[in-house]
C-alpha cells in the first residue's frame, strides 16, 4: 500500500530523526525493547500519513507521532500511572520566588560519573512534565515545536517546562 511518493518522502524525513525518536520513546516508556516497538509503530503511522501529507517541519511532526504511539503503548500496558490526562494546564502549584530555599547552583553541579542520579530525577517527573523537559533539553525542540508535538498551547508548554525544572531542582537538592 506504500506509494513511491510516500516512500520517497519517508526516506527523506524519517531516518535523520530516529535517534531523537528512540530517545524520546525510551524516556516515556522506560525500557529499550518497548521503545523500539513504539518507534517502529510510529514509523508505520508516519509512512501512511506521508501518502497524503507533505511535512514542513519534520522533527515536531515525527516526535508527535512517536509521542502518540507511546500513549497507545501506555494505554495498552495499563500504565495508568503514566496517563497524560490531567490538569497540567494551569499554573497552580508552579513554584514562586517566595517562601523557598535560596537558590544554590552549587548543589546542582552534579559529578560527571553521577548521571544515574540525574536520570533518576527526570524519570520521577510526571509524564507531561517529563516529555516537555526531554523534548526541550534532550531533543532540543523550540517552544513552538514542543507545542506542536504535544498539542498543547505555548503557555502550557512554558508552564510545564518551568514546573518540570523546578521539580528537578527540588529532587536533586533533596537527594545530594
Amino acid at each position, binding site marked *: *500500500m*506504500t*506509494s*513511491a511518493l510516500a*516512500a*520517497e518522502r*519517508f*526516506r527523506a524525513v*524519517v*531516518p535523520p530523526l*530516529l*535517534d*531523537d525518536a*528512540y*530517545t524520546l520513546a525510551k524516556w516515556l516508556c522506560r525500557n529499550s525493547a518497548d521503545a*523500539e516497538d513504539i*518507534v*517502529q*509503530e510510529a*514509523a*508505520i*503511522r508516519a*509512512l*501512511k500519513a506521508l501518502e497524503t501529507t507533505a511535512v514542513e517541519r519534520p522533527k515536531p511532526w515525527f516526535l508527535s507521532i512517536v509521542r502518540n504511539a507511546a500513549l*497507545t503503548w*501506555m*494505554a*495498552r*500496558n*495499563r500504565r495508568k500511572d503514566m496517563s497524560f490526562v490531567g490538569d497540567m494546564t494551569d*499554573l497552580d502549584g*508552579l*513554584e*514562586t*520566588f*517566595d517562601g523557598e530555599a*535560596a*537558590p544554590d*547552583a552549587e548543589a*546542582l*553541579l552534579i559529578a*560527571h560519573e*553521577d*548521571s544515574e542520579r*540525574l*536520570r533518576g530525577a*527526570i524519570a520521577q517527573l510526571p509524564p507531561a512534565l517529563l516529555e516537555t*523537559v526531554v523534548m*526541550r*533539553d*534532550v531533543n532540543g525542540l*523550540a*517552544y513552538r515545536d514542543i507545542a506542536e508535538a504535544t498539542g498543547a498551547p505555548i503557555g502550557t508548554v*512554558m*508552564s510545564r517546562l*518551568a514546573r518540570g*525544572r523546578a521539580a*528537578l*531542582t527540588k529532587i*536533586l537538592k533533596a537527594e545530594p
Partner: protein
Amino acid sequence: MSNAPDDRPNDGPDDRPDDRLLRLNAALDGELDAANLISFERDLRSDPALAARYRELEALRAAVRRHAVPERAPAALVDRVMALASPTVAVLPARSPRRPYFAPPALALAASLGVLGFVAGSGLTILRTPHASDGVAAGLVSDFARAEIAGQPFDVASSDRHTVKPWLAQRTTVSADVVDLAPQGFPLAGGRVAVVGKIPAPTLVYRHNEHMVAVTELPLDALGAETGAQIETHDGYHVARWADQNLAYVAVSDMDEKTLAEFVATFRQATKPAGEGPAK
C-alpha cells in the same frame, strides 16, 4: 511573551511571580524576543535573587545536557524502519495474493456457501441469518481452507513479529496488532493479506500443535466487523468474531471450539487496551 513591555498594564502578568519564572525559563531557552530580553537583562542586573535563580537554572540545564544525552537508535531498529520504505518494495503495487472472493458474484456465492455449509461443530452457539458479514466469514473460511490445502498458510513466514508487522503494514491500511503468543501455546507462524470488501486486511497465522488459527484484523466499520465473541461454524471450520476499541477481529481455525475460545481469550488479553472491561 511576545508583547513589548509597554503594551502591558502596570499590574500585567510579568509582575506576578509565576510569570517571572516563565520568563526566566524562556530567557534561558533563548525564546525571548529582543524587547523582552532587554528588560529581562535589566532585571537580572538589579535583582540578585533573580540572578541566583537564573544561575541555578543554567546549572540544571547543563547537568541535564551532560547526563541525559540523546541515544542512538539501535541498528536493528533502523534497519526495520528503513525496510518499510525501501525502494525495491515501494515501487511494487499493493499485493493481494488471494483471489478477489468479494467481488459481487463471488460474494453472493460465498454467502450462500456460508448459509448452506453444514454444521460440524458441537456446542454451536448461534447460527446467523445470512447477511453481508456472513459472506465475510465464509470468504475468510475459504481463504483458510485454500491456504491449508495448498500447504501455504502465510505469505510471510516468521515467528518474529518485528518481521511480520512491517510486512503487513506495507500491504494493508490497518495498523495490525501483532502479538506473539508462544508462551501461551500459540506461536506466531506468519502473516498474509486477506481481501475483505476489496480492502486488504492483515491476517496473522498462529500454530497450536498441528492446528492453525488465522486472525484477520478489520477496521471497526468494515464489512463483517461485529462485537461479541460467539463461535460459529462455517464449512466445518470454527469462526470467532470480536472487537475492541480499535479493531474488529475474525478468527478462523481448524482447532476445536474450546481451544479456539481459549486462543481468543489469550489474544484479547494480549491486545486489550486499558480501560476496557473483562472480555465479553
